[in-house]
């Protein structure tokens, strides 16, 4: 159905509601964006300028926030002294690796659950989802104990495995819905056309691509922003950005400048990713339907 313009006449009440809605949104926008703005601006200030604040109630002094000489010293120290290049690589490998592992196994499992009938299928599917129901904290201790026995603590493969434990059920759950929406006749037609079972599966992967794309993003976001796994399982050898940032808070010395710069370094890639794939993310999450 095409949308169309509906003729609409406001009553005074509706006008008032609309104005207050706009006001609310404006306040909400400031509330959400201000921390990012402060973080971004502060990362370019040296320490003295960063704490140069107007007096309470002095609204005309707001301009003081923007009176500074930009400096890149925090960024350069992050990467030269702080070894943040390494941590960023760790974050990327852990997030990307877990996304790839989850998407490969997740799509195979989701496909099977979508196409093959077998006894206990419903129970199996529920079990898969239920592994995602426990809070991360609850499984942390047993997971740590298992990982220590297997010498996986403090390694990147360990961290990837830990993220996969949580991402894989999620992948199966999301992707099954996408496969369910692809008519089976397409694969049957492929097989009669001369393809093997696996080629038939492969032929419909492009049709679930939006789902896979959306999932990969959510998966990377989960791993990239994660602190708990990274702090406990990744600690030491596989330090990621959030953990490294946390370590800049030292008992005698909170390095505000570096923390702000680290915050920008951590946030920026995900924001860029979000912008680039925004279009696919929306279609992926809202429109699983594949029309015949």
């Amino acid at each position: 159905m095409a949308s169309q313009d509906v003729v609409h006449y406001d009553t005074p009440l509706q006008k008032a509601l609309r104005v207050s809605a706009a006001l609310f949104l404006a306040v909400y926008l400031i509330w959400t964006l201000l921390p990012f703005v402060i973080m971004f601006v502060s990362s370019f200030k040296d320490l003295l300028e960063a704490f140069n604040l107007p007096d309470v109630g002095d609204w005309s002094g707001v301009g003081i926030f923007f009176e500074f000489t930009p400096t890149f010293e925090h960024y350069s120290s992050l990467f030269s002294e702080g070894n943040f290049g390494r941590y960023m690589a760790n974050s990327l490998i852990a997030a990307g690796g877990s996304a790839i592992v989850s998407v490969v196994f997740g799509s195979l499992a989701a496909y099977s659950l979508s196409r093959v009938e077998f006894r206990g299928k419903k129970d199996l599917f529920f079990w898969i989802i239920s592994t995602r129901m426990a809070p991360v904290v609850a499984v942390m201790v047993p997971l740590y104990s298992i990982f220590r026995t297997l010498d996986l603590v403090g390694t990147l493969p360990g961290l990837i495995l830990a993220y996969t434990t949580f991402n894989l059920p999620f992948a199966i759950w999301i992707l099954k819905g996408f496969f369910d929406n692809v008519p089976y006749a397409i694969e049957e037609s492929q097989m009669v056309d001369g393809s093997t079972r696996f080629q038939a599966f492969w032929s419909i992967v492009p049709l679930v691509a939006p789902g896979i794309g959306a999932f990969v993003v959510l998966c990377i976001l989960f791993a990239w922003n994660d602190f708990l796994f990274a702090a406990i399982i990744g600690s030491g050898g596989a330090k990621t950005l959030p953990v490294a940032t946390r370590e800049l808070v030292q008992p005698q010395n909170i390095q505000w400048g570096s923390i702000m710069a680290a915050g920008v370094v951590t946030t920026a890639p995900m924001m860029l990713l979000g912008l680039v794939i925004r279009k696919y993310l929306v279609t992926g999450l809202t429109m699983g339907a594949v029309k015949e």
Partner: protein
Amino acid sequence: MATVTLKNVWKYYGETPAVKDLNITCPDGSFVSILGPSGCGKSSTMRMLAGLEHISAGDVLFDEERINDLAPKDRDVAMVFENYALYPHKSVFENMANPLRLRKMDDSTIKDRVEAAGKLLEIDHLMERRPHELSGGQKQRVAIGRAIVREPKLFLFDEPIAHLDAKLRAHMRGEIKHLQKSLGTTMIYVTHDQLEALSMADYIAVMHDGELQQWGTPSEIYNHPVNAWVAGFVGEPAMNFLTCDLQGNGDKVHLSHKNFEIPLLSEQIKRLNGARKAKQARMGVRPDALSISMTDPGEPSIKGKIFVNELLGGDMLVEVELEDARIRVKTTPEFNGKPGDSCHLTVNRDKWHVFDSGDGHAYF
């Protein structure tokens, strides 16, 4: 091209048999239609032929080769699905080229074959489009195109035109029949529409409840149905059935009903006397084997009252009310009887049928 033989084929879904002891031989190069209502096992049969379902018991032979255990890709059949099953992300050209690409043919052969098929089906101007930019009829042509570029041994068409509108369906019937004749490839065409089967096929296999009811040419199926079920399923408007008594014996037997008493022809009496079990029987007569008149025609006829007239363009269908039933008669639009008038129906006794009142098999 191949002769397709099904020998004692069964299909079970769990405990439920969907196809029961099916025996069919489709001659090489023939157009065979499997006709039946939904749930009669026709689609299961087709899917077993394609290799999309396992064959529970029995054998399927292409020529002399048993193909039960071959994967779909090794059977060399091409199938057209009810919902077309085109690849939504590929162009028309790539859809049609797909089976050839899977066979690793070189690009120039693929191009030639796809273009030839496109010309044949009059879709050569749509080659760069995607399926969602096509109308139902065009999609269906692409699906057929994808089947014919292969030059397979056997075509399987699973209700390919069921989703088209009536006018396009009538057009496509002719096209598909012409296509099959010009390619000369054996075709098995599943449909629930008796008109499609009658108008297109060389042979029809009528199925009901998983069992083959009758195998024959369209004219055999229409004119000599083996039982009341086939007689009632084939033909539109449907055959009229009336429960009658069989009275008399020797060479004088007539069908007796509250509204009429009509003697059988002597040839029919001979057939009946050998087989008859009960006193009752079901008379079956098609609307076009009856004629209606407002005056007594002076020969044995059925007396009734006009219930309603339906003008169908070139024909008029008159529903006539009897004591315990209504029957339909086909006549010309000039017929001027009014609802409520008494009328007389004469039966063309060469074209009527008598079925057993128990199992419904046809005496003649």
